[in-house]
């Protein structure tokens, strides 16, 4: 078995694709995720924030204070138009003649003592996810409304200090009982598994295809089958190889995650990541790795079984391709609101690992449930290894 294992590792170590999946990808994926996306997002936000939006305001004379606020806002530039009807203004916005139209009713009177709410219309493209125009307007209107509120209440004898008590008699100050770590874990924990688990799967998939279906395709399997070594030892040697590459990916991933997280969090000053990394200790990282071991065993046995069944490299890829998407289903389940780690969810493969990692990051892991998760994953891995070994004994599978 060990001869097979050593040879497979030697051969895989000379394969660029394996090196890419097992070493390069896990090392690079985190800086890409942490750094590049943050950088791109920051640049996009900065450029959006620097954008100047052309606006028209209809009946500006009815609300001069508001018109002035809009005029002096650094992101708005007034243009003129003859249009007044909302539909025509909407079309003009669509045609790119200007970006925003604010329609103040012709009968609006800021100093009117009547207590009637005025309905204003704003027309702009609300589709972009980053709705900066909407945010700017919201702030301006809020500010202007506050100004009107104060004026109207003062007119009926309520002083500025009493305004808050009238408008908001009860104000809640939230003090969270959750520690910073728990809060962060809830937000980030599920996503860590979402990154780690597929990488382990990827670390197993290419070597499994190469030493299963690939060996069949190259004609080396037949030669191997007539060596004085039992088929059980043969498949276990192969299984160990796939497991090693999967675990190497997991280990490199965890180290890369820790290393890059520390670098980007501490040195580059990304606050959220720095806090998350400070919350995670070495024990937590080791426990995450410990959970990934039986999970990788499951991947290794399933992938090797599929690969051995396939006639060719391509056929194996056809089986394994959809599986790489299926892996995300139980992980996504763990991200759903309200799905918690319980004695029941501890028995759902992959979802349990994902939930466990989340609890570990939060620092609220129940050691009893953690043991159950590891035990149930080990048992499942054992069963699947047995199936894989049995599969490898069948001529129908080996000589399809």
């Amino acid at each position, binding site marked *: 078995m060990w*001869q*097979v294992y050593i*040879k497979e590792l*030697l*051969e895989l170590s*000379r*394969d660029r694709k394996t090196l890419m999946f097992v070493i390069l990808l896990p090392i690079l994926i985190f800086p890409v995720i942490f750094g590049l996306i943050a950088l791109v997002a920051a640049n996009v936000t900065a450029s959006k924030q620097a954008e100047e939006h052309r606006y028209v305001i209809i009946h500006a004379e009815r609300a001069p204070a508001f018109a002035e606020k809009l005029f002096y806002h650094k992101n708005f530039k007034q243009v003129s138009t003859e249009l007044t009807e909302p539909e025509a203004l909407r079309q003009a916005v669509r045609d790119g003649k200007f970006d925003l139209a604010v329609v103040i009713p012709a009968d609006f009177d800021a100093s009117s003592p009547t207590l009637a709410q005025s309905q204003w219309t704003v027309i702009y493209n609300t589709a972009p996810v980053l709705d900066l125009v909407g945010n700017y307007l919201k702030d301006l209107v809020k500010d202007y409304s506050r100004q009107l509120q104060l004026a109207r209440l003062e007119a009926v004898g309520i002083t500025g200090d009493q305004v808050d008590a009238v408008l908001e008699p009860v104000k809640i100050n939230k003090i969270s009982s959750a520690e910073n770590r728990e809060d962060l874990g809830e937000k980030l924990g599920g996503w860590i598994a979402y990154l780690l688990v597929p990488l382990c799967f990827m670390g197993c998939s290419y070597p499994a295809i190469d030493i299963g279906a690939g060996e069949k395709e*190259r*004609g*080396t*399997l*037949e*030669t*191997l*089958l*007539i*060596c*004085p*070594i*039992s088929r059980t030892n043969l498949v276990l040697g192969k299984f160990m190889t796939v497991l090693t590459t999967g675990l190497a990916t997991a280990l490199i991933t965890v180290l890369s995650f820790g290393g890059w997280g520390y670098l980007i969090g501490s040195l580059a000053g990304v606050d959220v990541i720095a806090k998350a990394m400070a919350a995670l200790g070495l024990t937590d990282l080791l426990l995450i790795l410990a959970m990934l071991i039986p999970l990788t065993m499951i991947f290794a046995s399933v992938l090797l079984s599929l690969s051995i069944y396939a006639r060719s490299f391509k056929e194996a890829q056809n089986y394994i391709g959809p599986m790489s998407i299926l892996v995300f289903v139980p992980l996504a389940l763990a991200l759903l609101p309200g799905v918690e780690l319980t004695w029941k969810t501890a028995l759902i493969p992959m979802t349990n690992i994902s939930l466990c990692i989340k609890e570990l990051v939060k620092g609220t892991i129940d050691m009893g449930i953690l043991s159950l998760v590891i035990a149930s994953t080990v048992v499942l891995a054992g069963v699947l290894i047995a199936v894989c070994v049995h599969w490898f004994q069948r*001529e*129908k599978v080996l*000589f399809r």
Partner: protein
Amino acid sequence: MIEIRQLAKAFALEKGQKLSEAELQDVRYTGRSFCSVRDVSFSCARGEVLGLLGPNGAGKTTTLRMLSTALKPDAGSILLGNEDVLKDPVLARRKIGFLSSSTGLYGRLTAFENVAYFARLHGMSELALRQRIDELFTMLDMHSFASRRAELMSSGMKQKTAIARAVVHSPALVVLDEPTTGLDIMTTQTVLDFIRGLKAAGTPVIFSTHHLDEVSSLCDRVVVINQGISAFDDSLSAFSNLSSNGDLREAFMTVIKGEAKSCGKSI
């Protein structure tokens, strides 16, 4: 000596597998299975070279695969010396050297590493395997590409490496499936000389081929398999006598057409 008696092997057809017109007329297709080998018997004594002939799809490769223990027969027996190959295939594999029709080398391993890997699987010590590999590489003129990866070798280099790998453990029986297919004249000559060397050393060699000139220059016995049955099993001279002028091609056609059947044991 190896003795094969009444070997048979059937394969289940895949669900929905459509059979061609020719396959429908082949008696070996029965219901949902294909009986690749129905009744094959022959023997090969020490120092003999046995040529296994037959049209494509006749059952030669399946027979050789059963002989090498890669496949388990449905019926029949294989005796290597006094040992039942089917009872303890792992033990039997130590005594059989098999070269499949594809070279079956690991592309990312060098010639030396390919041969050494199989030597280790056969339980050879590092010292013994190095000595044996050196000996084989000299015999097959392989030293010049010993450290070249298989993926960068020519067909001839690959075939030599595959042969060295098949015999690295000094097997008691050598089985070669079309060892000279696709090789140039020089490499073919090296391979044929190597087979002669095995014969001279008393190792029985069974090899399947479509090259009748190789049969005439190397073989002591000829077995023709047709439609899963050993249709001819006799000496080379008996095979040659099937034609009026000693033409082996004509003799082969005579057997395939069912006009001759011999199971003599004379040489």
